[in-house]
């Protein structure tokens, strides 16, 4: 019989199962020995304990049920997506607070569209115009409909 490597054996779901089990054990440990004010009878810890036990059970069931899927939890493309979308989003939010809503919205929108447009189709009109429309939508919504309270910024 061919011996299977660990990489072959562990599907993404099984890895999720392991995470569930570890999280459940850590949580249970924390409810028992952590800084919790349990109170009399079925106190504060009761429901979280039940949930952690359920999490461990689900993790164990995952180990038996999922055997086939070989996909990784996160691949290179996912990492790129998370970094590009989520991190640039965080940067955009900080820019809004520091250099202003209109400037940062226009820069962010145009930059992201440029990033997502393939090189043969990329030209200034196709990047600047949607960026401008996007900025107008944001400006109208957050200054006319909802008044967004922001700290005083460097620009506008």
């Amino acid at each position, binding site marked *: 019989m061919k011996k299977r490597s660990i990489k072959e054996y562990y599907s993404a779901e099984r890895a999720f199962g392991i995470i*569930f089990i570890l999280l459940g054990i850590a949580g249970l440990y924390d409810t028992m020995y952590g800084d919790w004010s349990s109170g009399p009878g079925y106190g504060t*810890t009761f429901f979280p304990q039940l949930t952690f036990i359920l999490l461990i059970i689900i993790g164990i069931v995952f180990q038996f049920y999922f055997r086939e899927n070989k996909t990784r939890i996160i691949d290179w*493309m996912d990492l790129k997506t998370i970094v590009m979308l989520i991190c640039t989003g965080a940067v955009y939010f900080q820019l809004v607070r520091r250099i202003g809503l209109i400037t940062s919205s226009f820069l962010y929108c145009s930059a992201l569209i440029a990033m997502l447009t393939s090189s043969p189709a990329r030209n200034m009109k196709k990047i600047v115009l949607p960026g401008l429309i996007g900025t107008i939508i944001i400006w109208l919504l957050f200054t006319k409909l909802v008044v967004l309270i922001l700290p005083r910024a460097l620009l506008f």
Partner: protein
Amino acid sequence: MEFVELLQTAMAEAFTLGVLLFSILGVFVGITVGAIPGLSGDLAIAIILPIVFTLSPTRALGMLIGIYKGSMFGGSISAISFGVPGTAAAAATVEDGYKAKKRGQPRRALFTALYSSVTGDIVSSLTLIFLALPMAKIAIMLGPREFFALYVFSLMLIALLTQGNPLKGIGAAVIGLLLGAIGMDPMAGSTRLTFGIPVLRGGLQLVPVLVGIFAISELGMQFKNVLMKKNEEDEASRGKGADLGFSSEGIMEHYDPAKDKMSLRIYLSTLKATLIGSLTGTFIGALPGAGSSLAGFMSYGLGKRLSKKSSEFGKGSLEGVAAPEAGNSATCGASLVPLFAFGIPGSATAALIGAALMMQGITPGPRMIAENAPVMYAFFIVLVYASFMNLGLSHLLLPLYAKLSMIKTKFLVPVVFMLALLGTYSARNSVFDVWVLLTMGVLGYILRKHKFPLGPLVLAFILGPGTERSLRQALVIGRGDVSYLFASPIALGFYGAAIAFIVAAMLAVKKQQEKKESL
């Protein structure tokens, strides 16, 4: 307040210019986002949610319900026009809708979808109006142990009935319960799972969790798809040149507009399928967890089985368009029944509407209609006329929607992402909420990638505190005796039903596995 007086107040409120305008805007936005593949009503409601708290309750609800209804029909526009369902709910419509279009009947297919969608929607709205109040009266009589059993039953149903693997549904629900347990204990008021972070004492806020899990994760997936497509196009342009033209697959042959006119006779010929879809969708919609997509497929299956022309299904049959469209739209009102009667949202969209109600100071549950009668009655009126707005707007603007559905995702992702970020921040002016939003976005993205259903996670997050409260209240009443939880026939009924559902789901999974192995 007398009923007539109440109705007059509600009518006056529902027909104010502001409510009418926001409802029309909602329907327009709903049809548009529904028509654009990749965007959905859930996503639009999640994005709009932090913004609508500035509106009056009726205007806010009018806009949200408009989006909900509009998106249900909107999904069929791209399904019929391009063979790409705009929303998951419209997946069953592709089967016959796209083939009807290719057979030279795009207009008939689109209008059949519209009329059956509106019919299903009205049946469902009336069910909500006439069922919610009597059910709420029954719910008032339930005690904590019955409510706990109802919560357990609902959570099980939510986890098992969502599309995909039921085990993953249960896993997602448990994560949701854990997220809901962060912060203040609902009974004793002591803090837990805060890891020493003071802002977590109040727990995770609903808006960043909902928007992060639903909207940011979906945007992440869209972003990844666009990025991959862009890379492919870059590769192709480096080689023999990019093929950015249209494929000829969707082009109709021998199109004759004279043979593609819609009439009352055609509508009546699909009425049986429409009614089958409406009733199936209403029933499925009222079950917690069973979504519009399931309703669409079940309605299609039933419509086919009960049709005299079942052999035409799958070949461009208009009945095959009417049944799933009526089915998915009929979940709109019905999915709000458990929310209005018991405070338990039946679907992800109902959870979002429940969140909007809470932001307006209205707590969903058995006492909601009685305590907020003028607003709720006005909402019922809006619920009905929004269906007619959907009909009117779609009639007028169908060609425009078909064009809007072709807007490329790369232009939408940045704008929708900015809306989500700023909308979440504006709800409480909290920077911490923005970090929660992004974290939930990453969590949702990873779970979505591995086909964990996100509905159970969000619904469990919302239901968690209520479940814990009723469990602990019941245990206090029973003086700590666990057997007290089972000493009620109603509670036992709910537990029995939950067990029956688990067994049925496990058998279905086993059967599926055996089928897979035999292939």
